[in-house]
């Protein structure tokens, strides 16, 4: 059973597609409302140029937003962790951006940045940045006191403590935050594309007006693929880091 572990996810997806296809073939589900996987694949193949163009735009927006959310989130978390005053002053603002739905802010972003990529990136970054800040901040503020005492004994400078202890000790929290941000960035990108245009979000919106449910499902598959690819890349990067340094071992 352990040998099958790496295949668990692909097998479950395959099983779901087979059940879905069989259900569609046997007319257990309404093909007008839920097209079969083969029908969706056929639509994607027929309109591959349009799908490829939209997917590449979404990929670009997700990549830029994720990079921005990760780097800005980490920088902000580091800054806030240096002072309790800063943390108390700025955390409510970060929470505000987390709690207000992005779809409500997006029209404002269109006014500020205009239609197109900048608004999409802004929307996705706002959605993706919070988990990075929150997870990294909690992790940075929870360095085990016994290790802090060790560094205090060696008269380490604040920068040495940050570089040699707090940052490596916060790795798990930062990594968890990045994984959550990966999924949220895709959501933020689509929300941004709904209002600002471009990418799979705009394609979904236009397909909706034309009642092209097969196109909507094709876009959903591609979005899932983009999200999964990003999480896969993160998992791979984590494995490489773990091979180099056992950062996930408890302190």
């Amino acid at each position, binding site marked *: 059973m352990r040998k099958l572990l790496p295949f668990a996810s692909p097998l479950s997806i395959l099983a779901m597609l087979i059940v879905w296809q069989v259900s569609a073939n046997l007319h257990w589900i309404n093909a007008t409302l839920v097209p079969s996987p083969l029908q969706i694949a056929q639509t994607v193949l027929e309109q591959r140029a349009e799908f490829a163009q939209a997917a590449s735009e979404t990929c670009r927006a997700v990549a830029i937003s994720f990079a921005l959310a990760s780097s800005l989130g980490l920088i902000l978390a580091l800054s806030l962790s240096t002072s309790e005053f800063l943390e108390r002053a700025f955390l409510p603002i970060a929470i505000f951006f987390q709690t207000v739905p992005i779809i409500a802010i997006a029209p404002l972003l269109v006014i500020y940045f205009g239609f197109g990529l900048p608004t999409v990136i802004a929307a996705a970054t706002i959605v993706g940045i919070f988990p990075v800040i929150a997870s990294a901040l909690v992790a940075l503020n929870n360095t085990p006191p016994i290790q802090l005492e060790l560094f205090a004994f060696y008269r380490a400078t604040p920068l040495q403590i940050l570089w040699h202890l707090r940052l490596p000790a916060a790795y798990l929290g930062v990594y968890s935050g990045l994984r959550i941000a990966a999924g949220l960035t895709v959501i933020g990108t689509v929300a941004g594309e709904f209002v600002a245009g471009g990418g799979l979000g705009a394609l979904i919106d236009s397909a909706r007006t034309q009642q092209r449910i097969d196109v909507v499902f094709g876009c959903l598959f591609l979005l899932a693929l983009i999200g999964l690819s990003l999480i896969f890349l993160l998992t791979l990067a984590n494995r490489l880091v773990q091979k180099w*340094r056992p950062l996930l071992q408890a302190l």
Partner: protein
Amino acid sequence: MADLVSQIQNVELQFRERLILKDFSLVLKPNTVHVLMGPSGCGKSTVLRLFAGLLRANSGTIQLPEKSVSMVFQEPRLLPWLSVRENILLPLKLKSGKAGSPEKASAPWLQAVNLADSADLFPHQLSGGMKMRAAIARAMITSPQLLLLDEPFAALDEIQRANLQKLLLEIQTRDQLTILFVTHSLVEACQIADELHLMDGKHGKIRETLVRPEGQINFAQLLAAWSEEYKQVMQVQSAAEAIA
């Protein structure tokens, strides 16, 4: 100064409302193993932290050694993401920004604590005893004059503990170290102590200092003698507490 490495005199330490040490004095002689024993919460670790500079006394004087002080904590406190060698070199790295020639600096201590073959392993790949040996090497790499140990072998089994006590005494003899060692075990104290300081539970005063007799004395005789003294001190303390 020649007959003492470090000392604490008439120290008072209060934490919030609680008076932990009152009029506490302790002189550490050179090339001597001092062992500190007493009931839980009497302030043994506090004394160690005063010598380590991790705590500041409210009053009194603390005279630290001319050369450096090093400390081994109750837990090895190795950083999981650093190899054994890198952990041992950590104090040098923090002191100078870089560890110099890592091989050169760490090799003698890896050898001394029998971890030469495990230098590139990470802490999670080591046993409890190996981790503690690495912690001792890390403490010794700065060539301290005074080594402080806070119940370092408490979590180890008897065999590992005996091996580490032997290793510690070898290092102490070779480097002419002064050691201040906190323990709860009278057996351990008899194994290593030149001077055993018994603290009472009230404001952590030293009630008695037992000195290892000159000349040949076997372990059983010493244990019997010090056990008797220890019992007496504890009885006095119990009576005092009862009256109070």
